[in-house]
């Protein structure tokens, strides 16, 4: 049986996605690829997909519909390709392989399930048009697709459509989360069927396992824990009836801290129509956000650096991967709460395709969930609380003469001491060596993951406090604080003289000034 690889024009009648135009998610992906200037597609007519095989074994193999166990995989390119180029790549011509990789936009797996065909999909991000305010997409990772002896690489995070057989929206969001770049080295990514089975292990909800109609938040937390991770839960503190919602400061700071740390974030919330009518509960996965400009600190105030974040990128199984949502606030009787509105950038292609995002409802987040390494025992909320206290004390020491900004995130120790300090002190090689050696030789042996609070002024880092992440909250202490600006020394000396808890709050000082 011959199964030829097909090269077809993007968006033409032979493009398998074009044949699915009645599906909202396929229309979104076609728009997304058109904006990436897609020109051609390479179709693998037979592809065994790990996730679909798991779904097949758990559910579809016993259906009388007689579903096959084989998928298609379609690769997209931003250049015209032909059979000759493909043959060259297969024969080992590196120029052909480089050309294909340079124009590779990613792939879509098509399941043989008519109602929900879109399986594992990884697409390249749009080019960043404002690199001074970058899109923060730390959770993305590299995926490699092997075709007839050559490989194609794409950086992104996997998305798929919920099939409602073995996975609903929460399962899919969790599945995307566990693809994070943060977990490359030690964890196997569970399939959607495994996630649903893990979530139901305790069997307390009274719901059947398959077909899956959804997971409760408690089941999601259990699935994260039973997959070998620590669930980090952040819940909105604004009570709106029976729901909780977030203030902008709390939502943006927490989301940014987790995404910057490399952890995609599951957002559980409520879909609402314009005008406030409830559509229902929903879960999505945040994979990135657009960094806001440095905050203009008010004198006498501590600001959180990411509190003005304007856009977040969501993998939404109802729409597609990396859908841009604007972070707005809605005024309710209980106060101002965050609401996420779909806000796709203007189309970069003409004529513009029919975009399913335009009519999509808003999402009001109620809880955030991230899967972190088990060793991380402190939450981003606690880091922000400490940052708030430290910044407030420093401002008070000046008699309220200055305003400061603060931010927090987790770092792997080697990434902090290596890449982060290297970037931060790139113009000060002597200070860099001094700090790195001091951290290795003079500071208490540090944990694999650090909680880092950064205090700054007008976008410039002034100091970092490095926290142990392995202890209980009351006992958590700082390993050290690094001072990047000599003007901070007097303030810190004053604080140490006044506060008996300064050692726990700051740890020993390491000067990172030239």
């Amino acid at each position: 049986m011959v199964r030829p690889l097909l090269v077809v024009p993007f968006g033409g009648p032979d493009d398998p996605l074009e044949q699915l135009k009645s599906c909202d998610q396929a229309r979104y992906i076609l728009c997304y690829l058109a904006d990436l200037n897609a020109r051609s597609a390479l179709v693998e007519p037979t592809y065994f997909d790990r996730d679909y095989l798991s779904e097949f074994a758990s559910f579809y193999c016993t259906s009388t519909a007689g579903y096959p166990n084989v998928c298609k995989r379609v690769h997209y390119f931003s250049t015209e390709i032909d059979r000759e180029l493909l043959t060259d790549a297969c024969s080992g011509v590196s120029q052909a392989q480089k050309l294909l990789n340079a124009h590779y936009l990613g792939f879509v797996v098509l399941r043989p399930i008519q109602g929900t065909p879109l399986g594992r999909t990884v697409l390249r991000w749009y080019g960043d048009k404002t690199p001074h305010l970058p899109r923060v997409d730390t959770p993305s990772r590299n995926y490699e697709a092997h075709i007839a002896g050559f490989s194609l690489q794409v950086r992104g995070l996997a998305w798929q459509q919920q099939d409602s057989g073995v996975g609903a929206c929460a399962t899919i969001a969790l599945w995307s989360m566990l693809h994070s770049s943060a977990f490359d080295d030690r964890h196997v990514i569970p399939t959607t069927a495994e996630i649903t089975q893990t979530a139901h292990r305790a069997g307390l909800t009274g719901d059947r396992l398959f077909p899956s109609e959804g997971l409760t938040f408690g089941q999601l937390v259990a699935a994260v824990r039973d997959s070998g991770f620590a669930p980090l839960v952040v819940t909105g503190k604004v009570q709106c009836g029976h729901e909780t919602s977030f203030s902008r400061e709390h939502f943006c700071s927490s989301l940014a801290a987790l995404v910057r740390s490399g952890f995609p974030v599951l957002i559980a919330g409520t879909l609402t129509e314009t005008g406030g009518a409830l559509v229902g509960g929903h879960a999505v996965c945040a994979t990135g956000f657009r960094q806001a400009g440095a905050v203009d600190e008010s004198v006498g105030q501590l600001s959180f650096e990411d509190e003005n974040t304007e856009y977040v990128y969501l993998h939404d199984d109802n729409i597609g991967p990396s859908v841009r949502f604007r972070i707005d606030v809605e005024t309710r009787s209980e106060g101002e709460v965050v609401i996420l509105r779909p806000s796709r950038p203007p189309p970069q292609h003409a004529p513009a395709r029919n975009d399913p995002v335009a009519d999509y409802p808003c999402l009001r987040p109620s809880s955030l969930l991230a899967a972190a390494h088990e060793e991380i025992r402190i939450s981003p909320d606690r880091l922000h609380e400490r940052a708030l206290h430290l910044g407030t004390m420093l401002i008070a020491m000046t008699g309220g003469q200055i305003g400061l900004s603060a931010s927090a995130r987790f770092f792997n120790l080697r990434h902090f001491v290596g890449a982060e300090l290297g970037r931060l002190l790139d113009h000060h090689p002597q200070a860099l060596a001094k700090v790195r050696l001091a951290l290795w030789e003079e500071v208490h042996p540090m944990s694999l993951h650090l909680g880092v609070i950064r205090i700054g002024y007008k976008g410039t880092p002034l100091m970092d406090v490095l926290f142990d992440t392995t202890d209980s909250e009351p006992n958590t202490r700082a390993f050290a604080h690094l001072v990047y600006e000599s003007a901070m020394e007097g303030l810190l000396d004053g604080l140490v003289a006044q506060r008996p808890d300064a050692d726990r709050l700051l740890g020993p000082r390491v000067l990172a000034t030239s």
Partner: protein
Amino acid sequence: MTPEPQENRGSLWTTSAGATGVVPKEQFQPNPNVTAKDVQAAVDRVKDRAATFSGRVSEHSLRASVESSR
């Protein structure tokens, strides 16, 4: 030095340390009239704001989230 417009500034996680001329050193001095009590009072004033980040998840809020994640 004229500060850069806000939209061109990087963030605390993208800017290098030691950018000259940004920090007004004369304002970054401890005020001799500020006592330990004053500092504690400032911390007390942000108590409500800090409670937002207390990290505790109430049973009620978790129950609410149960429905919203379906």
